[in-house]
């Protein structure tokens, strides 16, 4: 039994509205030792208009997970005595009302570990699930949120969000909690225990320890955990000390993972003037979303003032910040796109739920090559929107957005899209896609800057297989289909492309994930 399912003993129910002069600061100062991450979580609750909270005590007798965690702590630190755990739940309703599901905001598990000879406990947020305050209407995109049920003494409630956790620096370090957040996005249960992770990494707290005095997990440990759980991943490495210099920008790979609704982990080296040849200390954080700046100056200014001509604009250019958890600072923090530079970046894992033989950045480059080849073969059709697509392609002004897409999601998307004149794809064309597409594939959407960032619309998209070995040289065998204004390209056989006209001749909405 975990902390969400455990039956808690109610120890406090409190009104917290601003009009009641409730102070988050004072409460966290008095009750929880001014814990900074708890203060961050309380501030999220405030933004989400919480009016009351419920504090429950969770004991080992009621929670097998707590018993297992404490057992590991006792092995790691024989002076470990006991722990005290509070589950704090936040509600939009005051204490005078029985809360219903819409009143429930989220929860946090606060753990205090006591050791002999130490007057103060070691404290940390064992876990928390709060909904992100900023939503799609705030240009905030988090594709991989999970649904969690919490069994409180006031009833069962649910919350949708990204699980957050803090290390205790004894049995669990930043890599554990980063992995836990990322794995929670993908695993069927929406969570994993540290006991399982440590078993997979070979950490028994006796012969091999982590945390204070012992150090963190090595990348190989993290990979053992992922592989042991059958989780696939793409890896990006930048290690100047080993003369391994990443030839591209890691942000493109990171965006490629999260835009396909997968979580990622980003590891970096801290600036440390005292660092020796082995480098400074390192930290890793989970990344699972991004914000979007529709009015950003950067894409065109980068090209015009600071860089050479590019063949197209990656949609990542409009990304404003990555949405991350940092176990040191709290959940749902925004990391500006180029704040964490390559000087400090060292490692990225993009988790994924299916095998791919090439990544999003490579798929996008190949997709552009095929768009370009289509336009070379058919520079104009007389349809205004196809011809604009052709001009933007020829002049290097296309915006491309690449997503690993399930067939069922894509079919739902193309069944729903309409041009502004109301025209849809014809049923026989939909059937053709239904009959011939593989279960999962790369989709490269093509748009123009003003079409992409303001209307969130596109000229069309091109589909590539994701699991086919790349031929040398690259060739048309990687092409599945393309949908453009007034035209559909299929590749039914090896030698020829089938070109079909369609009544859908205008631009259409960009793809969105069904759960958004």
């Amino acid at each position, binding site marked *: 039994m975990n902390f969400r399912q455990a039956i808690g003993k109610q120890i406090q129910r409190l009104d917290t509205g601003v009009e009641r002069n409730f102070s988050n600061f004072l409460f966290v100062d008095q009750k929880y030792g001014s814990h900074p991450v708890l203060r961050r979580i309380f501030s999220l609750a405030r933004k989400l208009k919480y009016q009351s909270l419920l504090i429950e005590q969770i004991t080992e007798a009621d929670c097998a997970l707590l018993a297992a965690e404490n057992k590991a702590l006792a092995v790691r630190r024989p002076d470990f005595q006991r722990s005290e755990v509070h589950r704090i739940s936040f509600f939009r309703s005051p204490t005078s009302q029985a809360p219903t599901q819409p009143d429930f905001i989220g929860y946090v598990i606060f753990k205090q570990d006591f050791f002999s000879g130490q007057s103060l406990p070691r404290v940390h947020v064992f876990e928390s699930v709060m909904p992100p305050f900023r939503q799609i209407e705030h240009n905030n995109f988090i594709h991989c949120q999970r649904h969690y049920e919490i069994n409180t003494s006031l009833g069962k409630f649910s919350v949708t969000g990204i699980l957050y956790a803090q290390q205790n620096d004894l049995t669990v370090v930043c890599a554990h909690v980063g992995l836990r957040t990322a794995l929670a996005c993908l695993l069927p249960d929406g969570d994993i225990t540290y006991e399982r992770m440590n078993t997979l990494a070979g950490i028994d707290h006796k012969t091999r320890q982590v945390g204070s005095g012992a150090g963190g997990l090595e990348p190989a440990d993290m990979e053992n955990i992922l592989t042991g759980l059958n989780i696939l991943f793409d890896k990006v490495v930048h290690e100047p000390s080993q003369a391994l210099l990443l030839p591209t920008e890691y942000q493109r790979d990171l965006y490629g993972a999260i835009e396909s609704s997968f979580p990622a982990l980003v590891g970096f080296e801290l600036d440390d003037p005292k660092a020796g040849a082995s480098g400074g200390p390192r930290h890793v954080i989970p990344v699972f979303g991004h914000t979007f700046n529709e009015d950003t100056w950067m894409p065109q200014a980068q090209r*015009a003032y600071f860089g050479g001509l590019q063949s197209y604009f990656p949609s990542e250019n409009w990304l404003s910040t990555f949405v991350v958890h940092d176990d040191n600072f709290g959940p749902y923090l925004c990391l500006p796109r180029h704040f964490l530079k390559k000087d400090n970046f060292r490692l990225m894992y993009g988790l994924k739920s299916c095998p791919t033989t090439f990544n999003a950045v490579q798929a996008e480059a190949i997709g552009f090559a*095929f768009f370009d080849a289509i336009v070379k073969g058919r520079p104009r059709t007389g349809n205004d929107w196809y011809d604009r697509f052709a001009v933007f392609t020829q002049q290097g002004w296309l915006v491309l957005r690449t997503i690993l897409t399930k067939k069922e999601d894509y079919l739902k998307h193309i069944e729903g899209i309409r041009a502004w004149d109301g025209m849809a794809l014809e049923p026989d064309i939909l059937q053709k896609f239904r009959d011939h597409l593989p279960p999962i594939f790369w989709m490269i959407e093509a748009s123009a800057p003003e079409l992409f960032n303001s209307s969130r619309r596109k000229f069309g998209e091109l589909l590539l297989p994701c699991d086919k070995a790349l031929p040398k040289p690259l060739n048309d065998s990687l092409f599945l289909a393309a949908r453009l204004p007034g035209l559909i390209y299929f590749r039914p056989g090896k030698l020829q492309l089938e070109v079909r*006209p369609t009544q859908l001749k205008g631009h259409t909405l960009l793809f969105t994930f069904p759960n958004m």
Partner: protein
Amino acid sequence: MANMNESIDQLTASLQELTARTYGHACSCETVAGKVPANELQVSKEVESFVADTRAYSDKTRNVSVGRY
């Protein structure tokens, strides 16, 4: 002033070219169903080498495990 207008000028000129032809009237060249050789889908040398280089670096670093987190 930075001279960054060439790319914009080319795009603008091409779009004006489209606009100059009977905008708003029915298309004069309707697309008809047909087939084209698949090998029309060529991949440029730049894309070929970008994909090859990034894959080679990825292969080279696949088993690298440096540092602790």
